[in-house]
């Protein structure tokens, strides 16, 4: 089923004018911010396809900035997003570009904070739903509908078992999982979607594993009244 429940039909609660160009863009921005783990000092956003053509009319730029500031899809501050960004000390640069074969509503966000960097690319696929296709140079595929763990680690035998052992201790059910690596024995990422949020102590335990570099939690469910 492409649409899972009644609130994917009636909903989201959102600021207009477009579920794909506005609400979806908020969720893309919010996901990127959570990957970075804070309000970026600088955000360079490249828009592709229809996003590039119509972003001003649809407020896609405002929506992406709002997402980076962790606003929900129906936050009225989205309209004043540029002023909010300035107040938060966030510098934002928008660019448009063309790339063959890319989904018509795609944004690539390069964020930096205190020397850290996150690069997140995602598409808005309709009705406010999104798909993240790239994180920090890795190819991934997740929707951010569920709490999602992104674990960056070395490509080593047994590392997946070490991580999932901790999820088992937390009694967390995995709904979807994928691994991508840049090279053999090189950098890798594991993406795990689960039904519930992993409590912080368990997140810390995964972060403390040898060969794990960092972990981030993407969870958009506190927006628009969904708990």
């Amino acid at each position, binding site marked *: 089923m492409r649409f899972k429940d009644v*609130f994917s*039909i009636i909903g989201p609660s959102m600021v207009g004018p477009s579920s*794909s160009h506005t609400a979806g863009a908020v969720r893309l921005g919010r996901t990127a911010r959570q990957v970075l783990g804070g309000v970026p000092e600088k955000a360079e956003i490249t828009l592709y396809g229809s996003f590039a053509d119509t972003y001003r009319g649809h407020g896609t730029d*405002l929506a992406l900035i709002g997402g980076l500031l962790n606003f929900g899809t129906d936050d009225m501050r989205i309209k004043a997003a540029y002023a909010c960004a300035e107040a938060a000390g966030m510098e934002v640069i928008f660019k448009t570009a063309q790339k063959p074969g890319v989904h018509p509503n795609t944004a690539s966000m390069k964020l930096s904070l205190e020397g850290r960097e996150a690069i997140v690319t995602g598409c808005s696929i309709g009705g406010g739903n999104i798909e993240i296709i790239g994180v920090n140079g890795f190819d991934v595929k997740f929707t951010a509908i569920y709490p999602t763990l992104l674990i960056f680690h070395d490509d080593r035998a047994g590392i997946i078992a070490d991580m999932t052992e901790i999820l088992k201790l937390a009694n967390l059910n995995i709904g979807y999982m994928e691994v991508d690596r840049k090279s053999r024995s090189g950098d890798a990422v594991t993406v795990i979607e689960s039904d519930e949020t992993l409590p912080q102590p368990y997140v810390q335990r995964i972060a403390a594993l040898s060969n794990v570099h960092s972990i981030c939690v993407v969870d958009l469910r506190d927006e628009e009244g969904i708990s």
Partner: protein
Amino acid sequence: MRFNSLKTLQELCDKEALTIGQLMVVEQARETGRGEAQVISQMTAYYEVMKEAVRKGIAEDTRSRSGLTGGDAKRVHNYMSGNVPVLGEEACKAMAYALAVSEVNASMGRIIATPTAGSCGIIPGVFVSAQERFGWSDEHMVYGLFSAGAIGYVIANNSFVSGAEGGCQAEIGSAIGMAAGALTELRGGKPEQAVHSVGLALKNSLGLICDPVGGLVEIPCIVRNGFGAVTAMAAADMAMAGVRSVIPSDEVIDVMLEVGSAMPEKHRETAKGGLAQTPTGKKIMKELYGRG
């Protein structure tokens, strides 16, 4: 969910002696592992957003971000106070309310996507005007929203609900079908009648292309929301009177998929055809973006 067609939805309702709205609450709670009270409270909050959007669109001056549209809901509403609308007051009010919510959407106000932002005026237009007219409780309306959601769930998973995929029939058309079925049920129609009203309504919007001027959710989207509210009421009346959709509603949904899949790309939300590429449409686009 235990249903993936309007037929199985209707059969489940009949077997368990539930309305479509009641069944949807049960199914939603089961699917998400959240309690029924929590699910109902979220939908109640959504209905409040819808009512507020109606109020705002009628009372305040709305202007879209592009400056292309705004003020039509107010225009229709004002016209009603000094004239006898050809439609009659009730249908005219539903139309004004639907325009209001659509205009709030275009001005970056808060709305509920039903099923999308482009078609967000139809359900609130029909619901809020009917609630005022018949004196229904919010609780009754919220069950109506679950009913609309169940119908939309079937349409979305068997066809589509986005203009980019299936043209305007998928957005405005789906919203009309959802509103028609829900209104039939709110008025006391049986699940079978509600399902017939969905088929009757959808048949009237098959083939509708998505051709927004400048790619924006404004022209013709806003007026189509107004028309949509009126059509939903007409379909509900037909079904309540006993008119049946001779082609079963599930088969009509399949036709929407067939027609939408065959629709050229230029008529699926790309602004490369239809009204967007008329001389005036092109002129507006040039003014907006500095190119043709």
